[in-house]
């Protein structure tokens, strides 16, 4: 199968530009990057499906090899429409994030940051347990008071 250099170059350019934009912080550019990636993928499917030829509209007597491959076309058509739906959805997200936070940026997840900053002290694992010689005491948890005291000390200044 001969390789169509124009299409390959075009595809590579789409992917390169798409990735470049995808790694941006601006949500709008991320979305544009996604669209470019989608175009690149479509070209990939198109290029690998073979050379151009007759449209796959059946006319009696035409040899089967003369038509362009119809299967990749159906795949691309599906992809085009899905990309539209995803784009619109992303636009909704961009608008919403702008309305709520006045930002058009991909935000870092503070929850993940908090995990990384976690103290190695864990109440369940490391709190001191006070020896307790009965099951029938009324006190809820003899260790709780000590632990609350400890927690107050370690987490208070934050």
């Amino acid at each position, binding site marked *: 199968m001969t390789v*169509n250099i124009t*299409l390959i170059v075009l595809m590579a*350019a789409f992917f390169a530009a798409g990735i470049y934009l*995808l790694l941006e912080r601006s949500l709008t550019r991320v979305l544009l990057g996604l669209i470019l990636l989608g175009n690149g993928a479509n070209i990939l499917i198109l290029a690998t499906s073979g050379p151009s030829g007759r449209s*796959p509209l059946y006319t009696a007597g035409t040899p089967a090899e003369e038509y362009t491959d119809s299967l990749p076309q159906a795949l691309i058509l599906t992809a085009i429409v899905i990309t539209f739906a995803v784009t619109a959805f992303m636009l909704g997200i961009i*608008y919403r994030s702008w309305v709520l*936070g006045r930002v058009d940026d991909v935000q870092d*997840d503070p929850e993940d940051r908090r995990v990384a900053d976690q103290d*190695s002290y864990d109440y*369940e694992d490391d709190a001191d347990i006070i020896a307790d010689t009965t099951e029938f005491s009324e006190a809820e948890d003899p260790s709780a008071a000590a632990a609350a005291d400890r927690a107050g000390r370690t987490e208070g200044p934050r």
Partner: protein
Amino acid sequence: MLTVLIVMFAGALVAPALFARFGRSAFFVLAAAPAGGFVWLLVQLPAVLGSDQVALDGGSGAPPSVTVPWIPSLQLELAFRLDALAAVLCILILGVGALVLFYCARYFKSDDPDVGAFGAQLLAFAASMFGLVLADDLILMFIFWELTTILSYLLIGYSRHRLSARRSALQALIITTFGGLAMLVGLVMIGQTAGTYRISEILASSADLVTRGTIIDVAVALVLVGAITKSALVPFHFWLPGAMAAPTPVSAYLHAAAMVKAGVFLVARFAPGFGETAFWYPVILVLGMTTMLLGGWRALRQHDLKLVLAYGTVSQLGFLVMVVGLGGQDGALAGLGLVLAHGFFKATLFLVVGIIDHQSGTRDLRVLSGVGATSPALFAVALVAAGSMAGVPPLLGFVAKESVFEAFVHRAGDGVVGTLLLGGIVLGSVLTFAYSARFVWGAFALKHGVPRTDFKRVRTSFLLAPAVLAVASVLFGVWPLPLDAVIQPYASLFPVEGDTAHLALWHGFNLPLLLSVVTIAAGTALYLLRGPFERLQGRLPSARDAEVVYRSTIGVLDDVAVGVTGRTQRGSLAFYLFVILTTAVVTPLTALIVFDAPMPADFRIADSPAQVAAAAAILVGIVAALRATKRFMAVLMVGITGYGMAIIYALHGAPDLALTQMLVETIVLVAFVLALRSLPARLWNRAESRHRLLRAGLGIAFGGIMAVIAMSAMASRNSAPISIAYPGMAYDEGGGANAVNVLLVDIRAWDTLGEITVLAIAATGIASLIFVRGRGDKRRRADGVEDGSVDRGQEPLDAGGRAGAARALAMRFADVSRDPWLVAGRTLAPERRSIIFEVITRLLFHTIIVLSVYLLVAGHNLPGGGFAGGLTAGLALAIRYLAGGRFELAEASPVSAGTLLGAGLAIVTLTAIAPLFLGGAVLESYILEFWLPVFGDVKFVTSTIFDIGVYIIVVGLVLDVLRSLGSEIDERAESDDPVAEDTGADALVPPATEAEGVRP
């Protein structure tokens, strides 16, 4: 066998309901299940004991067994077999289980809300233990093994408000699961080597298996890891004292009679065949002896009665594993005798401690005083059990210990090791005697200088369970014959050295008797010297506690987990993408190089000069999009690449794609403009972000690798595409000349079905994002909307010059009294209206709709179809919206978007299913040919109905985009409050976030 098992599990299932009905008395009902099982066991005993213990199932004289196929392809079956060893364990599991459940009925408060779940877990635990000892399949045994682990976790953590209970439960779970996993590996190794997972068959062929060398040695060692974690041997012993945070009946059952015996059982199960493997004796004897001495030593230091017993149990478990693993007929007999004796006396003692705690509110032996005098019956029961533990005649503990001594006296002749073992055992027994005495003294003695403990009278029903067990200790001590009969069949699996050993109270004057006397004398001395001894213990440096090691291990694990998570889960999308994309570049590159991927030999510049031109235009668009600093400029440039794609498709011979791409690109542009109009014009409000070169490098690398992959893929093709026959097939069988359309609605209709479902979901997602509360399908129509009220006063009206003149003209136009061009055009503010646009819209709208229907119907034979048609109709709606505002759109779409999506999905689904009722396959299509008055001969393909559904869904999607990103955002912008309609939970967000939004 199965019935007993099922009844117990079923009892556990209904237990919560029973407790809701009867309160704590439901324990009596639960106790009936194991009690019934115990009766069944007694009935079975003659058959079990009379059977040939090594006979395989189906062979003559085999023990009772049941096998139910489960997963034959994995050789997995529910195989149960009641041999003598299982029967001995069942005596403890069912007998003690019934008594403990009975005891619980008096132990718990009647208003305890958690007692229902507790009862269920305890009974389920008994059932699991029962299944564990009966299982004749390695995997089945493992499943029951882990069930007991999980249930013990729940039972230990019963007082979940206590930190000690939660932590001990987790600690026990982690340690026993660790051992269980090691054991699973060992079991699988054994099963694979033996070619069967049947335990009875494996034991029968053990002589052959042990000659396989290392693999079996290692496998057995791994199984032993499971046993020593479960039975709390050094270095895993510490979880057992921790587990004393469980309610005392749990300690009595799990940690004395049943669960910890599972490890002993495992040793006993494999001892007849695998006792000669390389690691067996080192592990069993060294760890067993260490555990026995360490436990006894520690028990003498405890002040909590329960901990005295707990360390005593640790010590005894070491002892048990050592004796059971010793091998030989005398060792096996002594081992199982000791297992039974220990089950009886230790359960009794725990239950006694439970009563003391219940009646007096403490278990601290420094506080208790004079309980023996207050409650003589309890004292008597405890004295018997403690005596049995200490090995005082004529109790069962003495009988068992005598035979142990005898077995070890035999081994002592073998050399230094045997003598050391005997010495160690005697030393351990001395410690045992001492802590038994300490227990009795601590619980019951009247202590000098300690006030008498306030002790409530013990009800008979409360005392019944420990009393029965104490009676058993006496009865079988005086009359050990029945136990000897039960154990002998198992012991006979081992070779006999000298005379056959028997359990008996009196063996005559011999060395074991002398050792017993020595033990009792030394133990008494140690007890009497407890004061100095305690001081000595206090002075000795205590070794680093295994629990400390465990906790620091867990601590390090936690820190490593946090560290790894912190390094990898940074919360930055760009970082994740970097990692993913780098992998996506490196992995295929490696594969291409390593596997010497084929590369094409033939190249051509392009298919046509026009293709080169289109590609050049697209490249310009791409570069411009990258460099654009204004938001809409970037969008527009990306749009150019999209239109360029349409040309590429058209040149390639794909008219459907070209058409669809054109339409989509246009609607996407509209959507972009609508959605982003409230965002600032400039694309970034800070200096160009960092890592620019890195991003560019990664992008170029990715583009390059994709190019190589594409070329390699093209060079790899070695057969004709399956789609070569599609155009012909589409025409002959699909009834359409347009192969692409027939593919979509017929040949690959499943794909399309999935795709339009995604479309419907995306549409709903957009509407939900913008409307927040619901889909907002009920929109206000134009009726009653004041003229010129929409979008008024956004700009200063007093501008002169051209703008002023234009507005004056527009005002005049707005006032003319004749049929308007558009239904709701009047609602727009005059300065927003455009007469030309309104007229053109009026002229074009219906034409475009007709065109869209034509595309839909003609699509089967010509370029077009449901997607193109739906997008075209969507464009028509977009024009109406742009010309006449949101009320115009509402007037143009009397059917809501939600209804459209639903109707479309319904049509498509029905089309898909209908052929089933006609005897066809899902999504099968039919060709109908008939004659209509105006149209003449008509060839109708049912897949067109499918396409109509697609059309409707696409229209719904576009409508949702326009309504959400257009109408709704308009309305918010006019009301000057972007989140005006967000009430409820959402209303909490804006004040805080808006304050943040100001931040640079």
